[in-house]
């Protein structure tokens, strides 16, 4: 089975809140001292693909849409033994999900026939969670969201997918090709690349395509939606003592106060 895994490079979401800054004019997060890392759900997606390949064979191609520096997340994918890696160069900051989906779809079509495209359920920076669904639409294939695992099906040309829902799990069977968005689960905890594979990862071939090569217009990078305002909410704390003659009266007053607060939010 040919699996394509989409991988996004993001600002490290683990940086201390104190160090996080936003540029309110550009409506984007400032890099500051933060590292650039692989989005964790994309790592879950790659781990899911690796486990499937180990059990069933096949080929994994990692693809990313981003600036030159995004090569690093693809090198990591190669260190984890993805077979191939493709970087679609896009220097536009904060490209919207539709643009990214169109770009990835063009890249995936150029890579060749595929059976499954795995994407993280959302990215740890904007958390929009839209790229997977939009990508399926662009590729004209079905999409299963919030999956935690991928299994072969007895039926030819199909896969079984277990996914989380609000009320439990669903076990779905789908024909391929399809897009699957992957969530985190104890069974797809990303493995750690081994030293020798890390050393080799920067020696492996990595394909780079420009937007022009894929026929994508870079001026449409933010045409789907616009971030109107970006700010860090201010946290304010106030200490208030609730009074009352009896314990019951205090509890009653407290409940009313909490209700009032919630109504004013």
């Amino acid at each position: 089975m040919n699996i394509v895994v989409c991988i996004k490079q993001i600002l490290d979401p683990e940086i201390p809140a104190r160090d996080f800054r936003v540029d309110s004019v550009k409506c984007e997060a400032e890099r500051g001292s933060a590292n650039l890392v692989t989005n964790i759900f994309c790592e879950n997606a790659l781990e899911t693909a690796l486990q499937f390949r180990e059990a069933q064979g096949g080929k994994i191609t990692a693809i990313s849409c981003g600036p030159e520096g995004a090569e690093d997340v693809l090198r990591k994918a190669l260190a984890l033994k993805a077979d191939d890696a493709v970087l679609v160069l896009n220097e536009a900051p904060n490209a919207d999900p539709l643009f990214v989906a169109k770009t990835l779809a063009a890249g995936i079509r150029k890579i060749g026939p595929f059976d499954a495209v795995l994407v993280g359920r959302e990215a740890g920076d904007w958390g929009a969670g839209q790229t997977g669904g939009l990508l399926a639409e662009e590729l004209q294939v079905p999409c299963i969201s919030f999956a935690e695992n991928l299994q072969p099906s007895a039926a030819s040309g199909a896969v079984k997918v277990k996914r989380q829902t609000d009320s439990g799990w669903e076990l779905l069977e789908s024909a391929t090709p399809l897009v699957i968005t992957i969530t985190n689960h104890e069974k797809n905890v990303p493995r750690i690349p081994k030293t020798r594979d890390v050393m080799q990862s920067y020696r492996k071939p990595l394909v780079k395509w420009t937007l022009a090569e894929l026929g994508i217009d870079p001026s449409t990078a933010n045409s789907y939606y616009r971030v109107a305002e970006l700010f860090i909410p201010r946290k304010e704390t106030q200490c208030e003592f609730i009074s009352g003659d009896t314990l019951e009266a205090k509890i009653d007053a407290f409940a009313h106060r909490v209700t009032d607060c919630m109504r004013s939010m």
Partner: protein
Amino acid sequence: MAIDELRETGTEGTIPGTGFTKAHQLFRESVRRFIDQEINPYMDQWEEAEMFPAHDLFKKAGDQGLLGLSYPEEYGGAGADYWYNMALAEELARVKGGAIPMALGVQTDMATPALNQYGSHKLKKKFLEPAIRGDAVCSIAVTEAGAGSDVASIRTKAERDGDEYVINGSKMFITNGVQADWICLLARTTPGTTFKGMSLIIVPTDTPGFCVSKKLKKLGNWASDTAELVFDNVRVPVANRIGEEGQGFIYQMQQFQNERLISSLGAAAGAEKILRMTIEYCRGRQTFGKPLIENQWIYFKLTELISEVEFLRQMCYHCGRIMDRGDDYTREASMAKLKAGRLVRQVADICLQFHGGMGYMEEYPMARYFRDSRLMSIGAGADEIMLGIIAKFEGIAPAR
């Protein structure tokens, strides 16, 4: 594809002023994940028990490829440049305590460098290979009750009897000593009291006559097992000797340079971690109506220490560059080790002071760092030995 072939392509982007490349950075990320998954969640438990599961942890580290970074692929190593060892040393500072980095350092840079460099092929196959895989835990045994810094005074002897050495004596303060599968032993193979006539010999710990006479209690690094070892007519094949007979002291002195460099770099990274932690604490701690960090004494002192740590780190990188040229870096490694020993004591003391009462509490990492860091001025050659070595290089030590 062999690593050597890969290296020749030379396409990696380098980070100026060091031998670190992007691949080293990715390696660091892997080490961090390993520490977060396999070490830090258990550190408090291991400290409490004054023991860690060396065989279990080293096997995991071996599987990850962390135990033979710069050793040849023929013996299971990665064939990497020494900057990988240096990156590992820096990242191990993320461990919540000095015990495990020390135990790993003994395995990778203290007990095995001479074996790798001077050992026979058979000896390396038998002892180095399992150590790199993490199937064997090893120790370096030099210090004795009556001979610590004065290595030339060691009395443990290995007398030749046909094709065997018969070893008698004892060793003190041996890291990993309780759990080790083999010991790299420095013993006197020719009677006398000079540095000549000593050899490095591999002693499997299941050899009759070997025993761990005592597990030692220590000021710090509790999770690491430290032992007193006794050798009572222990017989090992002469083939277990590393390199030539009588060259053990020289080999050990060379082996010490790796240890001193790696421990100094780890000390710099550890000191920086503690300083950053202290800065965060001082930002959050309010005294007299303002954050502690806003006192000039405090932010000046922390700034001064951060600067000194950066000097130490750069000195270690300088050692790496000298090593890359194939030159001797004993003088510089000794300087780094001297500075590291003194600096971490200062960092530990000042940072504990700025933490106030919280720094004195066991539930906070500061107290452990204060205890653990004290060893830096003692182990792998005390500060005073470093001064002696540097003075000799500078030509200002009186002739003996």
